[in-house]
């Protein structure tokens, strides 16, 4: 199918600023879905609040645009109640890791089968450019006129520590790599995290003098390197890209199915026991011929 078959054209043009990286990520995600040949009726996209979260309105899947930070909690309800569905959960960095941080680590801990995509532009864009938990120290933002003193954290390391069974990172610049990684993440049975560095020229770029969209994309190219590459070996300050973790681990819904199986057997046994008691009582009260 063509990419336009996966979007709701009625709602275009989208509301993102010119130069925003989110449109590139949307495109990569739709190409991944297309290449995998997934049925649109089986895909549910849940999102939270923020620039990134508006992505769910544009796709022709079942879409659930929820509350700030809560996309994974809603997604957990959808997935556990109907495990045959494929859950895609795109989130912003503030959405996923500040207000939604608790839901994020616990979804990873459960290893519930869904794909969390952190569209990391290191800023709260929709509210006008406040610093996010991933901005890092020494950055300018509308709430950091004297620069930030808050440390950031590494989404990849956090996800691994929390128990995600697939963890990867790419950037909006490396769009073909994104498609490849997203396909692997969606295919993976378990909780998958894909961090995609995105650019916000309107707020982050302008405040921090990182230039326009193309310069910011160039920056993504120059400050990252593939896992296992020579470049990374020579310059460990580069941000590594690629698949960090891809392991088989018990998936939550499958484990719950086993609970159901055990519980159903248990209650059947109880019914049998009860029937037997009734029969025994009946035998005792009825005079034997």
């Amino acid at each position, binding site marked *: 199918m063509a990419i336009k078959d996966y979007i709701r054209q009625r709602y275009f043009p989208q509301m993102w600023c010119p130069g925003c990286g989110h449109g590139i990520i949307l495109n990569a995600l739709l190409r991944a879905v297309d290449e995998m040949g997934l049925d649109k009726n089986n895909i549910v996209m849940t999102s939270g609040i923020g620039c990134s979260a508006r992505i769910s309105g544009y796709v022709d899947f079942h*879409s659930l645009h*929820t509350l700030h930070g809560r996309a994974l909690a809603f997604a*957990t309800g959808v997935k556990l109640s109907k495990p045959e569905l494929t859950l895609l959960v795109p989130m912003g960095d503030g959405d996923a890791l500040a207000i939604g941080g608790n839901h994020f680590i616990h979804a990873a801990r459960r290893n519930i089968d869904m794909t969390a995509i952190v569209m990391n532009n290191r800023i709260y864009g929709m509210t006008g450019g406040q610093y996010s938990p991933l901005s890092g120290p020494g950055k300018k933002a509308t709430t950091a006129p004297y620069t930030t003193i808050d440390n950031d954290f590494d989404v990849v390391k956090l996800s691994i520590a929390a128990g995600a069974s697939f963890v990867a990172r790419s950037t909006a610049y490396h769009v073909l790599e994104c498609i490849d990684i997203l396909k692997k993440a969606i295919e993976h049975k378990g909780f998958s995290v894909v961090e995609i560095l995105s650019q916000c020229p309107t707020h982050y770029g302008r405040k921090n003098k990182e230039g326009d969209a193309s310069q910011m994309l160039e920056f993504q190219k120059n400050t990252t390197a593939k896992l296992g590459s020579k470049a990374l070996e020579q310059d460990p300050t580069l941000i590594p890209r690629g698949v960090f973790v891809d392991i088989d681990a018990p998936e939550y819904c499958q484990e719950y199915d086993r609970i159901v199986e055990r519980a159903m057997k248990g209650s059947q046994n109880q019914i049998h026991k009860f029937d037997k008691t009734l029969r025994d009582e009946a035998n005792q009260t009825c005079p034997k011929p």
Partner: protein
Amino acid sequence: MTDNIKFVQGNEACVEGALYAGIDFYAGYPITPSTEVAELLSKRLPEKGGKFIQMEDEIASMCAIIGASLTGHKVMTATSGPGFSLKQEALGYACMAEIPCVIVNVQRGGPSTGNPTHVSQGDINQARWGTHGDHAIIALTASNHQDVFEVTVDAFNLAETYRTPVILLFDEVVGHMREKLVIPEKGEIPLVDRLRTSVRKGVDYHPYLPREDGRLPMSDFGGEHRYNVTGLFHDMWGFPSNNHQVVRELLHHLVDKIENNVHSITRYKEHYLEGAEYILISYGSSARSAIHMAKNRRERGEKVGVLELQSIWPFPEAMVREKCAGAKAVIVVEMNMGQVMKEVKACVDDSSKVFLANRIDNKLITPTNIKTLLRMIQGRGV
């Protein structure tokens, strides 16, 4: 067969009611005094192929049941005061996105952490206005376990009928007290199932376009119709809109679908109300003391009766006004600082005849407590 007769806690009666109503998904977080609801459903739900999940917090539990409702399941969560505060965000989402779900609040002392193991009825107004913005809500309550069972079934039915969250306002005494419960045969209480759209595949489905009767047929996530659900003001396709007419019409719809149906949502019981000169209005565990006191007074020839409310929101103004029209005095018996009393004062013909018999020390109000006030009103001294 006598296995449908049980001796249970109120929380267990609620679980039995939920199972009777067809619950198949529960998400929760441990909190006193509602934890037994979660414990029992963690055992009972998988036995019938349903799902139970203990989420990371109260907020996530509320979000998870909304997600599960959208796949076509009957869902519930249970909590108490502090957890109910945390659920308000997603409760508002369920109002806005019109998602059927049931929220149990077994009330304890508040505000804040308050008094987890003791009784209060202090969340009446929080149930009404806890989430921000104009909206309407349905809240039911009960004073004994048979009624807990029945209003729980009712809550699921109303949630499906009006596509709305329904709150069950129980209290610690009812939740933890043990009492007889008779579980009705299947079919004895009618159940309302999810109203699903009859729009066929390939035909434009409007998830937020009400039918002539005001109801909105749903389509399960995973089905043939792919649509958007949002907490933003939205058009008939569920897509965000800030068009002023769309905003106004949606808000009217959300409020009217409930407020215009107060009559069919109203639930109450009358005890010794025939010709009563003194009417006690009560609900939940405090109604038990009120009924006890009224019975006692009637035996002595005093015309005292009880109007027991089982639906608190939307407040049954017309019914209360009518029942109280001939009374010399109306005494609202509750365990808070007059939350329902204010509603009664606002709707009766003469608010100066409305009095409050309350207890706010997290102990169950006694018949003697009520009698003391009644004697004062009657001019008979304490």
